């Protein structure tokens, strides 16, 4: 009987964009057990809420992560607005939805590029990131920032879109869609990708439930868990949102879900542009958050994130807490790594799209 060998994986590894450590216990080439540990990029951002006033902290919340930055800003202001009983104008909700869905497109394209790079498919990696540039350019034109926008504020948004901007977003997304479909075909039908992803890292529907999986990871196993279905602030109800699901639960299914979600996000953005309500984009905010607490959720590109704020009647909040999707997907990763080949570990880890800086805050 083969001996158990422990191989350390990370925190620095070519396939990992961010540091996470896994102790892989191997029997020959098979992983018997994976033990994750984190803490290499913990910045204690939640604690800063005691030092910054509730409006300033929006900028800190956005810096929890560079990829889902807009969503974190939105989640935080949504929680503060809930605590203060502020209702934002409908146009601001549509604009938030639009930027959030653009962020999802950018996040998924970034991830597809990283996945292609991990498989050694360099031209596909460059294609994905070239398409992502189109989205980053749109961010820059509409918000002034390419990664962190700071357009979300308590009470609404800082910037409005002009008619010309809306036309440009529509034209660029429609143009990008053609190239995106050509790239999707490669992801879905190329032999190299099929052999690296199909049937690898399978997570059953029951396991997705039992291990608390979220986002595309859960949806790729047939679990239709998507907070956008219940979101009463964004434009999702008006746009008749339905979650994308796949049934296979393997690495390829997780790729398929993200590819379909990019198409869906483009539809949602076009829907927002078409139905954009007229009116103001912010309401005045008077006073400080009252004593009390509020939970809210936002469906980030990686899954559901939970935001909690606790006020005490002063300008500083007493507590801010963020439960990120990677936090929820780590146990699922441990499950799917059991029994896989050592050579498949990098691809499997990537397909959960881990965001460690989010996870550690």
């Amino acid at each position, binding site marked *: 009987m083969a001996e158990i060998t422990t191989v350390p994986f990370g*925190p620095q590894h070519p396939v990992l964009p961010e540091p996470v*450590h896994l102790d892989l216990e191997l029997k020959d080439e098979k992983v018997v*057990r994976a033990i994750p*540990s*984190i*803490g*290499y990029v*913990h910045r204690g951002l939640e*604690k800063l809420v005691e030092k910054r006033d509730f409006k300033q902290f929006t900028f800190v919340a956005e810096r929890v992560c560079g990829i889902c930055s807009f969503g974190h800003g939105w989640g935080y202001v949504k929680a503060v607005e*809930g605590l203060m009983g502020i209702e934002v104008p409908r146009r601001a909700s549509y604009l938030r939805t639009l930027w959030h869905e653009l962020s999802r497109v950018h996040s998924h394209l970034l991830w597809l590029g990283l996945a292609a790079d991990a498989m050694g498919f360099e031209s596909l990696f460059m294609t994905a990131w070239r398409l992502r540039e189109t989205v980053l350019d749109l961010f820059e034109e509409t918000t002034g920032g390419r990664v962190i926008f700071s357009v979300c504020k308590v009470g609404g948004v800082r910037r409005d879109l002009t008619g010309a901007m809306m036309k440009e977003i529509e034209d660029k997304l429609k143009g990008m869609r053609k190239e995106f479909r050509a790239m999707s075909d490669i992801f879905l039908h190329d032999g190299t990708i099929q052999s690296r992803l199909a049937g690898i890292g399978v997570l059953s529907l029951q396991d997705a*439930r*039992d*291990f*608390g999986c979220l986002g595309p990871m859960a949806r790729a196993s047939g679990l239709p868990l998507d*907070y956008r*279905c*219940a979101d*009463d602030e964004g434009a999702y109800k008006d746009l008749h949102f339905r979650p994308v699901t796949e049934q296979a639960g393997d690495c390829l299914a997780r790729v398929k879900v993200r590819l379909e979600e990019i198409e869906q996000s483009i539809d949602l953005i076009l829907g927002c542009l078409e139905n954009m309500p007229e009116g103001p984009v912010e309401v005045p905010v008077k006073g400080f958050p009252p004593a009390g607490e509020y*939970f*809210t*959720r936002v469906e980030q590109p990686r899954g*559901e994130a*939970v935001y*909690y704020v*606790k006020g005490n009647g002063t300008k500083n909040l*007493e*507590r801010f*807490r963020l*439960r990120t999707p990677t*936090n*929820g997907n*780590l*146990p*699922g990763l441990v499950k799917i790594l059991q029994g896989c080949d050592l050579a498949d570990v990098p691809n499997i880890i990537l397909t959960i799209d881990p965001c460690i800086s989010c996870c*550690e805050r």
Partner: protein
Amino acid sequence: MQQQFIEIQPLDLPGRVARFKKEGCRLVQILCTRVEGGYELTYSFDRNYFLYHLRLTVPEGASVMSVTSMFWYAFVWENEIHDLFGLDIRFISEDVDYRGHFFHLAEKTPWHELQNAAHAKQAFKVNLRGGLGIDASAVRKDAPAGTDNGKGD
């Protein structure tokens, strides 16, 4: 957002969590907040996008039962609370009980014990300066300890 808070006693936690598990709810998160004289814990469960929050207060020095036997994936939050807040969580599943080593931080944890130690050191200095007219550092060079995670290894 639709949600409901339910106040419970620490001893009732396993029974209430088991009931949520039986009803098919999903454990969404565990929140820990420092309060005067202890910790406030919130266990959030989701059913059809409705959140139920179990709220309990654990006094300083007391412990709380782990829920990993019902929701295995709670180990991420339980180990985080243990490592960073120093709350003693009993009977975390053996395979995922990190005993204070889940977070690889450059600084020692839990935070509040460090803060308490720093305050104690400061008070010690002030008392000695005022009472005896000498610097505490000359008397006692080492600061009060308080940086162990409780369980050790």
